[in-house]
């Protein structure tokens, strides 16, 4: 056994110009950002205010930044695939050899689901849920920081695989036997497994945190039926996380045992059964879809209500639909493999349950429609994302019901028709939702609005680009094109794939518009400043505090008497034609103390993950011990809160009065 396990210089793909170029670019970017930060003297600030922060708002922002950076990486993978398929027709092999192309589509799926969609959704929940509940933080603030940094560890390991070794070549769900040692002897699958194990633990901890927060820590008077809809969807999503992620962790643990210790859970020989993996993967995988999309539905609900100047139509229906989806999402997993050869009764059962889940989803669409009905719809950027979502998503739902019909699924499963379908629900559903949320809550987080013109340009590019990129895939799917083809000989597919390539370029323009939007907004922040704390004439409690909110969120915890508490408060003020008498009896507020525990734990987690991937056993032991020691030290802490004196709260509150325009 050598000191560095399987690791040596051959792990760095020096002969691959595309990879080395990318790695070079990333290294230059990271080094220049780090040196800029260091030279400007921002390190102590970053350490104090962000890295060690346990404030849910800061953690939420960091999640979103992480997700947006990874969106660039995942999108780069996507456009590389599109380009490869646009050119590799007939005898042509394109510019990516199979062993590279296979890593790219595996990384694209893994990154987009685990490191873009998940952190976006969790980040928005982190930022908005405690504010909407009218409380000062989540239930376990330090654990929240650990969750974030463990997610970041997974991200880091996945990106390291680009430079050192390789990533999985198995597709993002790593089905055995292909992902077993026999067929994938390299470190790619190990990178996949350990990255997702680390971030998976982070996600599970987040789930526990939010379930506790929502169930136990609401503002006085906020009964369940007075909770904003986004909090309901967040509750459903986190209940799903708590129930589903342990399945994934256990499943990956079994595959790791197969790969590291010669077990036979899913191997071809010795009684292993790969279909057990496939079943368990989707027992996690289907609820995962709803973990992502339910909070996005919540955002659409908030946006539709706020910008229509109306309460959400059919609030109780919406809550019922959300919780129905939450339960039903566990009854449909088999529709991911109708082609397994299960009996007709099994296929029919899961086909029908999959369609039934479309009922509450359909109800939601109608509820948004009736929310706008009789409203005064302001066509802001979040509203554009919402309407764009409604128009596309119903069509994605249509193809979803087609795939739920076993007899149709056999014809289009594993094809690019399927690829088009799930992009058709995840991009308009999850991504558009998160973009709406990002534009909606940005002024709350930073105190100034995002530029509208660039925001609208970004929306139109995404909307048009999305349809150009994915509608052609329905066509080629029906023409019999399977997914994950490195090259193909059917020339009739090529024109469609060229259109898809153009679509990807239009999406790229959309992404550029978003980057410009943020730059322009920062430059014009004084004109875009939100001084009232309520830039959209909002309805829920997050708009009743300053933008950005102080560390303690609310000087005095709000009392809630009905749904849309802040809106009702504003209506009462308007009715009385005078502002309520300001209350001056401020109490000192305890806020959780910053902690480097999350960062340190994640550091050791990365060390052990990397060591386990490369079989460097001493280093793995060091990492595990380090993480354990960090957590142990944390448990023996003597002080975990800081007191904000009453006059500081008073001072802040006077400087940031909540204005209700009379």
């Amino acid at each position, binding site marked *: 056994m050598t000191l560095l396990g399987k690791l040596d210089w051959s792990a760095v793909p020096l002969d691959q110009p595309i990879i080395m170029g990318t790695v070079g670019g990333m290294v230059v970017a990271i080094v220049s950002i780090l040196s800029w930060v260091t030279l400007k003297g921002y390190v102590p600030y970053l350490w104090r205010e962000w890295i060690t922060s346990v404030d849910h708002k800061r953690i939420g922002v960091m999640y979103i930044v992480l997700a947006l950076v990874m969106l660039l990486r995942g999108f780069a993978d996507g456009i590389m695939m599109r380009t490869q398929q646009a050119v590799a027709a007939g005898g042509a092999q394109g510019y990516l050899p*199979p*062993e590279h192309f*296979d890593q790219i589509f595996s990384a694209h799926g893994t990154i987009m689901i685990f490191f873009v969609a998940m952190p976006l959704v969790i980040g928005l929940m982190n930022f908005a849920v405690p504010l909407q509940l009218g409380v000062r933080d989540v239930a376990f603030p330090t654990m929240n920081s650990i969750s974030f940094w463990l997610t970041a560890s997974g991200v880091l390991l996945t990106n390291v695989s680009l430079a050192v070794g390789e990533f999985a070549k*198995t597709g993002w769900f790593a089905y055995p*036997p292909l992902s077993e040692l*026999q*067929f994938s002897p390299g470190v790619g699958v190990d990178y996949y497994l350990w990255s997702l194990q680390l971030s998976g633990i982070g996600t599970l901890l987040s789930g526990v945190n939010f379930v506790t927060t929502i169930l136990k820590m609401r503002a006085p008077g906020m009964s369940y039926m007075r909770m904003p809809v986004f909090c309901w969807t967040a509750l459903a999503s986190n209940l799903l996380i708590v129930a589903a992620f342990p399945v994934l962790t256990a499943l990956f643990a079994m595959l790791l045992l197969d790969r590291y210790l010669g077990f*036979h859970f899913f191997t*071809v020989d*010795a009684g292993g059964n*790969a279909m057990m993996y496939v079943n368990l993967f989707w027992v996690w995988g289907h609820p995962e879809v709803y973990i992502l999309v339910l909070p996005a539905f919540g955002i659409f609900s908030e946006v539709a209500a706020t910008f*229509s100047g*109306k*309460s959400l*139509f*059919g609030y109780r*229906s919406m809550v019922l639909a959300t919780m129905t989806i939450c339960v039903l999402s566990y009854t449909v997993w088999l529709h991911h493999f109708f*082609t*397994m050869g*299960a009996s007709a*009764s099994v296929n*029919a059962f899961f*086909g*029908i349950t999959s*369609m*039934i889940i*479309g*009922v509450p989803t*359909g109800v939601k669409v*109608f509820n948004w429609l009736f929310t*706008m*009905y*009789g*409203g*005064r719809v302001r066509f802001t950027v979040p509203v554009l994302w919402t*309407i764009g979502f409604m*128009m596309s998503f119903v*069509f994605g739902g249509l193809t979803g*019901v*087609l795939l*739920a*019909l*076993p*007899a*149709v699924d*056999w*014809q289009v499963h594993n094809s690019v028709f399927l690829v088009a379908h799930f992009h058709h629900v995840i991009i308009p559903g999850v991504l558009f939702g998160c973009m709406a949320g990002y534009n909606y809550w940005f002024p709350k987080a930073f105190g100034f609005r995002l530029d509208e013109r660039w925001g609208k340009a970004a929306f139109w590019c995404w*909307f048009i680009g999305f*349809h150009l990129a994915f*509608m052609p895939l329905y*066509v080629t799917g*029906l*023409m*019999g094109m*399977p*997914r994950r*083809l490195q090259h*193909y*000989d*059917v020339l009739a597919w090529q024109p469609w794939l060229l259109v898809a390539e153009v679509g990807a370029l239009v999406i790229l323009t959309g992404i550029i518009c978003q980057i410009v939007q943020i730059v322009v907004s920062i430059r014009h922040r004084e004109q875009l400043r939100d001084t009232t704390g309520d830039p959209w004439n909002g309805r829920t409690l997050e708009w009743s505090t300053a933008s950005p909110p102080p560390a303690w969120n609310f000087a005095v915890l709000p009392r809630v008497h009905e749904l849309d508490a802040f809106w009702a408060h504003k209506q009462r003020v308007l009715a009385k034609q005078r502002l309520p008498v300001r209350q001056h009896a401020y109490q000192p507020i305890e806020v959780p103390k910053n902690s480097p525990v999350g960062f340190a734990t994640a550091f050791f987690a990365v060390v052990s993950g990397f060591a386990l991937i490369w079989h460097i056993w001493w280093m793995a032991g060091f990492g595990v011990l380090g993480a354990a020691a960090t957590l142990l030290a944390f448990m023996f802490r003597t002080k975990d809160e800081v007191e904000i004196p009453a006059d500081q709260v008073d001072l802040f509150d006077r400087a940031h009065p909540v204005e209700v325009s009379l």
Partner: protein
Amino acid sequence: MRYGLLAAVLLSAMILGGCDGGVLDPKGPIALAERQILINATGIMLAIVIPVIIATLGVAFWFRASNERARYRPDFVYSGRVEMLIWSIPLMTVLLTGTVAWIAAYDLDPPKPIASSTRPIKVQAISLDWKWLFIYPELGVASVNHLTIPVGTPVSFELTSSGVMNSFFVPQLAGQIYTMAGMVTRLNLRADYAGTYRGLSANFSGDGFADMHFNVDAMPPERFAQWIASTRSAGPVLDSKGYTDLAKPSAAVPPFTYHSVAPGLFDSIRMSSMQSDDALCQGYPTSMKAEK
């Protein structure tokens, strides 16, 4: 307007896909029935989806904040009748499509034999890294990366894999089914027209996956008989040694045939993946779902 674009794309999908040897251009009863279900279900749902899209645009446009004529009704947040309606519409749709799903799942169940006066021929399909092996157990021949079948005769497949999971798929003849090591899946199809159809593996199986496609030649029975005769007269023998050679990973293998096949080869391939150094596992029951 945007939806017009989508509809146009879908419509052209239907037409172009139809001309091009895909799912919409079936050449056998199974694929034909599957296409019919696809079209019926799409029709049922478009009846809901198109009005919803139009209504979304219409409502959003009419109730724009700048429209003085639109009535602002901030209290319109609950209506029993509307609730009733919006739960019923998707429910009814699902009732309809659910019934279609249920009936079709039984009617078109892949293992279900096709009713026919002609006796079906048996084909055993094995996916290997990265090619397809087709054994005709009753005729004693085999072919690689090429499937020849008689027109109008049902073909009854038994499928397995040498290792990695693949999916056997001839879009113009029938839906796909997985091939899994140690397990047998079954599929029945029939070609009603002579022709060459594209077959492929639909499930990603590694570096050579892109070349894992094959042609299916459906020919009149008399020509099929000639093909069998000529195949029997030449080519290598497929015994366990020949199989071991074939099983070595290779991609884009040109089609060829075996003039004879060792009896019981398919079962031994399936069983070989059940073998183990652990004596206890020898008697491991092969009670896989697919086997039923």
